[in-house]
C-alpha cells in the first residue's frame, strides 16, 4: 500500500476494518449456528422450561398444571424434605471428596516409580474408571448384603444385623465407600497425569538438599499438584452432588430417608415427589444453583492458592 499521508491512510483502514467486521460477524454467526442450535435445543430450552415448570404443580402426565409463582422455589428450598436431602447430599460430598482425593493421591504416588510391575498396579488402580456405577453398586451391594455378603460376615456386628446399608447410622457411609471406590480410578488417573507433569529435577534438587520422602511430598509433590487437585475436587464435588445410581441401587433412599440425596428426591422411585414434575423441576433447578455456587466458591477460594506452573 502506498503512503499518501497519515490521515488518509488511517481513514481508509478504518473503513476497511468496518466492512471486514461486518463480514466477520456474518461468518461467525454461520460457524456458530450449529453449536448454538444444539446448545439451545438441548440445554438452554430445557433449562428454561425446567425453570418455568418449577413454579407449577401438575398432574402426573403434565397435562393439567396450576401456576403458583416463584415463591414455590422458596417453599421447596425451605421444605423439610429438601433440607433433609440437602443435608444428606452435603454430608455425602464431605465424605467422598476428601477421602477420594487422599486415596487417589496416595495410590498415584505409590506407583509413580519406574519399577518393574508398576504398570500392572497402574492398570488395576485405574480400572474402576471402566466400571459403571451400576456394576460398582451391585458389587458393593452383594459384598455388604447382611445374609450372604462376604464383607458383612467379615465385619460382623452392625454389618450383619441389620446390615451397613440398612442402619440409619451407617447407610450413608456405606454408599460413600462404594462411591469413593467407583471414583478412585478417575482421581488416580488425573493425579498420575499431574505427577508426570512435575519436573524430575525438582525432586532431585530436594533430594540433594537432603529432603526426606515426606518433605519432598509436602514441598514438591503436593504444591505442584495444586491445579490437578483443584480440578479433581471440583469434578468430584460435582459428581457427589449428582450421584444417583449408588443411592438408587444400594439403599433406595433409605433407611428412613437417611440416604435420600437431592438427586434421589428428584428422581428416585421411592421419592415422595416421584410424579410431581413441578416439585421435581424446582428441586432440580435449586440443585443446579447450589452446584453452580459451590463450583464458584471452590474456584474462587482455592485458585489464588494454586500455582499453575510457568
Amino acid at each position: 500500500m502506498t503512503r499518501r499521508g497519515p490521515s488518509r491512510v488511517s481513514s481508509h483502514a478504518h473503513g476497511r476494518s468496518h466492512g471486514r467486521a461486518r463480514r466477520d460477524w456474518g461468518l461467525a454467526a454461520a460457524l456458530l449456528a450449529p453449536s448454538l442450535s444444539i446448545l439451545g435445543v438441548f440445554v438452554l430450552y430445557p433449562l428454561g422450561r425446567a425453570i418455568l415448570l418449577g413454579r407449577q404443580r401438575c398432574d402426573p402426565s403434565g397435562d393439567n398444571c396450576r401456576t403458583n409463582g416463584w415463591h414455590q422455589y422458596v417453599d421447596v428450598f425451605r421444605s423439610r424434605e429438601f433440607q433433609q436431602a440437602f443435608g444428606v447430599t452435603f454430608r455425602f460430598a464431605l465424605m467422598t471428596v476428601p477421602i477420594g482425593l487422599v486415596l487417589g493421591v496416595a495410590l498415584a504416588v505409590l506407583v509413580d516409580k519406574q519399577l518393574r510391575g508398576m504398570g500392572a498396579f497402574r492398570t488395576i488402580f485405574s480400572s474402576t474408571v471402566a466400571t459403571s456405577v451400576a456394576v460398582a453398586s451391585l458389587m458393593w451391594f452383594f459384598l455388604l448384603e447382611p445374609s450372604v455378603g462376604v464383607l458383612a460376615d467379615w465385619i460382623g456386628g452392625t454389618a450383619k444385623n441389620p446390615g451397613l446399608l440398612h442402619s440409619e447410622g451407617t447407610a450413608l457411609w456405606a454408599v460413600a465407600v462404594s462411591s469413593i471406590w467407583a471414583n478412585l480410578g478417575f482421581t488416580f488417573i488425573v493425579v498420575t497425569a499431574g505427577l508426570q507433569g512435575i519436573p524430575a529435577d525438582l525432586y532431585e534438587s530436594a533430594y540433594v538438599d537432603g529432603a526426606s520422602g515426606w518433605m519432598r511430598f509436602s514441598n514438591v509433590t503436593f504444591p505442584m499438584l495444586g491445579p490437578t487437585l483443584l480440578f479433581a475436587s471440583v469434578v468430584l464435588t460435582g459428581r457427589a452432588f449428582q450421584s444417583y445410581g449408588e443411592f438408587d441401587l444400594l439403599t433406595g433412599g433409605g433407611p428412613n430417608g437417611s440416604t435420600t440425596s437431592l438427586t434421589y428426591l428428584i428422581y428416585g422411585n421411592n421419592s415422595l415427589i416421584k410424579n410431581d414434575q413441578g416439585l421435581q423441576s424446582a428441586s432440580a433447578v435449586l440443585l443446579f444453583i447450589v452446584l453452580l455456587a459451590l463450583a464458584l466458591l471452590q474456584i474462587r477460594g482455592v485458585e489464588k492458592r494454586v500455582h499453575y506452573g510457568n
Partner: protein
Amino acid sequence: MSALRLRITMPALAVCLGLAACGSGQSILQAGNEPPPPTTAAPSTLPGQTTVPTLPPTTLPRPIDSLPGCDVEALDIAAAGGPVEIVFWHGLSNELKRELERITDEYNSSQDRVRVRLEAQGTYEDNIDKYLQSNTDNRPDLVQLPEYAVQLMIDTESSVPVQACMEDAGYAAAELLPAALTAYASESVQWAMPFNVSNPVLYYNRKVFRDAGLDDDKPPLTLAEVSAYGQQIQQTGAASYGISLDSAPDGGGGWFLEQWLAKEGELYSDNDNGRSAPSTRVLFDGPTSVALLTELQQVVTTGGGVYVGENPGGQDHLLKLADATTPAAMTISTSAALGPVLKFVEGGIIPGIGVEDIGIGPMPSPNGAPGALIGGASLWITAGHGDAKAAAAWEFITHLVSAAVQSQWAAATGYVPVNSGALALDPLQSVYADDPRFRVAYDQVAQAPDDPTFAGPVIGPLREVRVTAAAAVGKILSGGDPATALADAAALATDLIASYNATRPSN
C-alpha cells in the same frame, strides 16, 4: 495449609448455617400452595390435611358412554387390507420377557389379522413414566401396567376401558377369576384386563421345621402361629430366627399392609378403597392397623422374627433364609419369586438347602383369613389410535387371557393364571399336580371374597403412599411406636392424595 483449609470450610459452614436458619419445617408437598388461612379456619379440616381444595366425589357409577368406545368389527374391515400392526409396551425382563416374546411370536404367525410389535420399556416404573410423559401419538396401542397404577391411568383419560370391548364383542368373562377382574375395576367400569397375577405367599425351610419338631406340612396361618413357630425354632436351635420381615414399598412395608388390611376386612382408603369415587384420605391409622402392626412388631421382639430392613434390592428377606451363620426359617414374598428361587436353589449354591426343602404356604395374617389381593399387572388399550388398533389390541388381549395361553404362561413363569380354564389344560395342569407349591398363590386368589375391601385400594399416588406406609412399617419393625408411626404416615399420605387431587383433570 491451614489458610487453605479455612477458605474451604468457611463457605461450607456459612451454607450449613444458612440452611439451618431457613428451613420452614413444612412438607415439600405444600410448596407453592397458599399459606393456610388465619386461625379462624373451620374445624372441619383433618389434622395433617392440606388446605388444597379437594374435589367433590364424582357420581357413581361412571357412565360407560362417556368414555372412549370400542368397535371390534373395525378390525374385520381393516384386516381385509392386511394385518393391523399394534405396538405393545411391557415392563417384563429376563425369562418373563422371553416367554412373552415366545407367546407373541406364536400369535403373530398363527393368524394374519394382527401383528403385535413388543417394546420392552425396562421396569414397570419406566413403563409408567414413559407412558405418562408421552402424548397420544407416541403412546403404544397396548400397555402393561402394575396394580398400583390403576387410578393414575384412569386419570390420564387416555384409554379405552376393556369393558367397552367386552360389551361390544359380547365377550364371556365367565372363566376369568372375578377377584382378578375386580382389581382393575372402579366406579363400576372394568378398565383393564388382568394378565400376570401374583400375590404374597409364605416361604419356609422344611428342614428347619422338622429339626425344630414342627410339622413341615403345616405352615403357620396366623401371626400368633408365626410367633410360636419362631420361638420353637429359636429354642430348639434349628435356626437363628423364625420369620424374616422387610419393609419394602412393594413388599413387607407397603404391599403387605394392603394385604393384611384386606384380610382383616378393613378399608385402606375412603370411598370404598377409591372404588366408588376417588379416595380423599387413607384409613391405615385406625385401631385395627395399630393392633396389626403391634402384633407384627412383637413377632420381631418376642416371636423369633428378624427385621432385614427396607430391602431395596428385593432379595434381602429371601437371602436371610440362606444366611450361612444366622439364618431365618420363614419369610413372606411374592409368589412370582417362586420360580427364580427354586432355580437359584437348584444351582446348589446354598449349602444345606435343596429344592425340596422350600415350602410354600398361604400368607399368614392376624386371624388367618384366606385370600389375597391381586398383584402383578394388567393390559390397557390406548384411546385415540382409531377403532381398528383398539380392536386389534382387544383381540390380542383375548388371546393372552385365553385358557390355553394362560396355561402356558402360568406354567412357564409361576404367575397365577387369570383364566380358571387354564387349570384343566396342560402344561399348567401337570405343573400344579407335580408341584402343589405353585398352586398356593392361585388358591389365595380363588378364595378371596368379592368385596370392596378385597379389591384393594385405587389411589392416584398409590406408589408414593406405599412408600410412606413402608417407612412407617420400617420404623415400627425397628422398635418405633405403631400408633405414632402410622398416624404420621397417614397424615403424609393424605397430603399426597390431596396434592394429587388438586391437579386431577376436572371430572
